[in-house]
């Protein structure tokens, strides 16, 4: 039984919705009633059936719509996809990884067959059937990274590893939480994290870099990150701030449930075998408050987290303007009873 792909939009009429099954599999990021930074990295291994971790590269009911939205973003702004010249080999590494993982997890939708360096890739949801020579860019309609990331949910940053640091030297970034690949391209790990508050003082980035540069082949790792977005907009980029920034002033007590979305990023880290680079997929999951509060535990917990969030973090995540309305709305769903341990719904 395959996935039923939804017809929906992430702009204009915002028809994006989660089905009831997808609400329950949402990667809720809080395992307790408060939030603070931590180096919350764990091995990226397969998780329970029916969760977003059932496969290491997750494909869900939003796949086709997300790929259509990505194509629209790229048509307006080709610089969302960039690869410095030395990163082509890493692009082939990523193409192999994503084709293998998608074919492994979803054989009814994707098929990869290989005869030496002659590869055939069938992507049924997008109606693609291409035969190409692995390693020969002239046999694909785009460079290898762009080709496969036009067919894979989530943003992808490919990091070159050299001089004991990681360098943002390639990426496909169209579903980002207010950062720009075009701005960050070529920066190292400390440079592109410079705007994050509080974490530097805690030494988090030094430890995280040490961990990431030691990620080994066959042993990917992951972490969750989160923010909030008004309307189910995937492309909340600095380039398009004029389109989504003003949305934050449109939240009223009446429309919180429909407009305010929790935005969770499942970030994973993989060593790439040929280039010795690291790929960093950032997979964005959206859920509107009306959908999230169908799980009473999540409603109670989110209320407490947002209410008690340190001011710097609320500012960094862009919540300041609508936080009072959101907390007021969520408070009505929090009877003060305890929440069970763990991330999942009751």
């Amino acid at each position, binding site marked *: 039984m395959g996935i039923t792909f939804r017809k929906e939009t992430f702009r204009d009429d915002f028809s994006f919705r989660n089905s009831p099954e997808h609400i329950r599999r949402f990667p809720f990021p809080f395992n307790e009633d408060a939030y603070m930074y931590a180096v919350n990295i764990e*091995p990226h291994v397969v998780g329970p059936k029916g969760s977003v971790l059932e496969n290491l590269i997750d494909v869900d009911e939003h796949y086709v719509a997300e790929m259509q939205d990505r194509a629209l973003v790229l048509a307006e702004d080709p610089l969302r996809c960039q690869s410095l010249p*030395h*990163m082509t080999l890493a692009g082939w*590494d990523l193409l192999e990884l994503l084709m293998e993982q998608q074919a492994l997890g979803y054989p009814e939708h994707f098929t990869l067959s290989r005869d030496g360096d002659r590869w055939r890739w069938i992507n049924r949801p997008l109606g693609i059937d291409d035969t190409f020579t692995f*390693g020969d860019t002239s046999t694909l309609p785009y460079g290898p990274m762009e080709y496969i990331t036009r067919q894979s949910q989530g943003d992808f940053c490919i990091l070159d590893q*050299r001089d004991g640091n990681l360098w943002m030297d390639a990426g496909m970034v169209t579903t980002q939480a207010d950062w720009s690949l075009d701005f960050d391209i070529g920066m190292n790990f400390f440079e592109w994290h410079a705007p994050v508050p509080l974490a530097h003082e805690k030494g988090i980035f030094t430890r995280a870099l040490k961990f990431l540069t030691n990620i080994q*082949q066959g042993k990917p790792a992951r972490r969750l990150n989160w923010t909030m977005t008004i309307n189910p907009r995937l492309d909340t980029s600095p380039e398009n701030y004029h389109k989504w920034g003003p949305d934050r002033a449109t939240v009223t007590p009446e429309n919180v449930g429909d407009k305010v979305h929790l935005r969770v990023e499942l970030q994973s880290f993989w060593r790439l*075998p*040929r280039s*010795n680079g690291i790929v960093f997929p950032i997979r964005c999951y959206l859920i509107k408050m009306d959908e999230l509060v169908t799980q009473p535990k999540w409603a109670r917990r989110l209320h407490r987290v947002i209410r008690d969030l340190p001011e710097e973090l609320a500012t960094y995540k862009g919540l300041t303007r609508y936080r009072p309305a959101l907390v007021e709305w969520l408070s009505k769903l929090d009877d003060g009873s305890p929440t069970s341990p763990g991330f999942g719904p009751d």
Partner: protein
Amino acid sequence: MSTGTTKLDVVVSDVVPVNDLVTRFHFRRRDGELLPTFSGGAHVVVEMRDGDRTRLNPYSLMGSPLDTREYTISIRRDDVGRGGSLFMHRQVKPGLEMVISYPVNLFSLDLRARKHLMLAGGIGITPFMAQTAQLAGAGGNFELHYTCRTASLGTYADVLQQRHGNRVRLYHDDREERIDLDRLLSTQPLGTHLYVCGPAGMINWVRDRAAALGWPPETVHFEHFAAPQPGAPFDVTLAVSGRTIHVGGQQSLLEAIEAAGVDPPYLCRGGVCGQCETNVISYDGKFIHNDHWLSEEDHRSGCKIMPCVSRFEGKSLVLER
């Protein structure tokens, strides 16, 4: 979480003597599947079960990264070492089942380089076998300068010249051929990266000359392939696990810690990657630091040791393990 690598169950598919000192070993997966792809410069750690002793030594993969049906390593026999190379030369035969680590690359090509200038000494040629194969397959620009003692000990010199023609230059010690290093380093095009693998003296010489001639440090890459050295036996107290262990003369401190059932993280087992860095709680004696990870200041402080390659002589040593 552990920073170690995943293990691979392999079988020795061939053992090929290359010359008087060097033997090549071929590994395939026991389940018949392909081995993981790797990048030129990567090594694997080979587990050698020798009776009740286990040695773990790193060796560079020397095959083409484009061929993952088998991995090949070449091992130079070291008659005065700790016995790992002798075990491989004498006891490892085709058909033997062994365990190796996933590939790890601590000597990666910088793919931004306009040209890759490689300097190899002796058995230090092995990572360049894979790197030149990788670059040649992708049309990369490289030049390899290879110093060996004699033509008959010039491991793979013939293969390399056959594959890459005049991109490979040979220097034979017995014919008193020497690299004109200063001239070589002063006449490279902009954007050249330098790679050196060989004996410690050669690495230091090349790094020193490159620095003196103004090469930016980030363009100079090197790999020490020194295995742990044998030495006098000593005793160590592991404070965290509450054990006292004996380190044999042919055993590394890390191996002795592992034999006691304590598993510090490791990657290179050659004093380079920093994973097994261990805090010293107290000591009365003298450290024999053989690593390339800790700073000179760390070495002088007596507060840290790299148990994969370094040793101790004296009355007592207490480690935070």
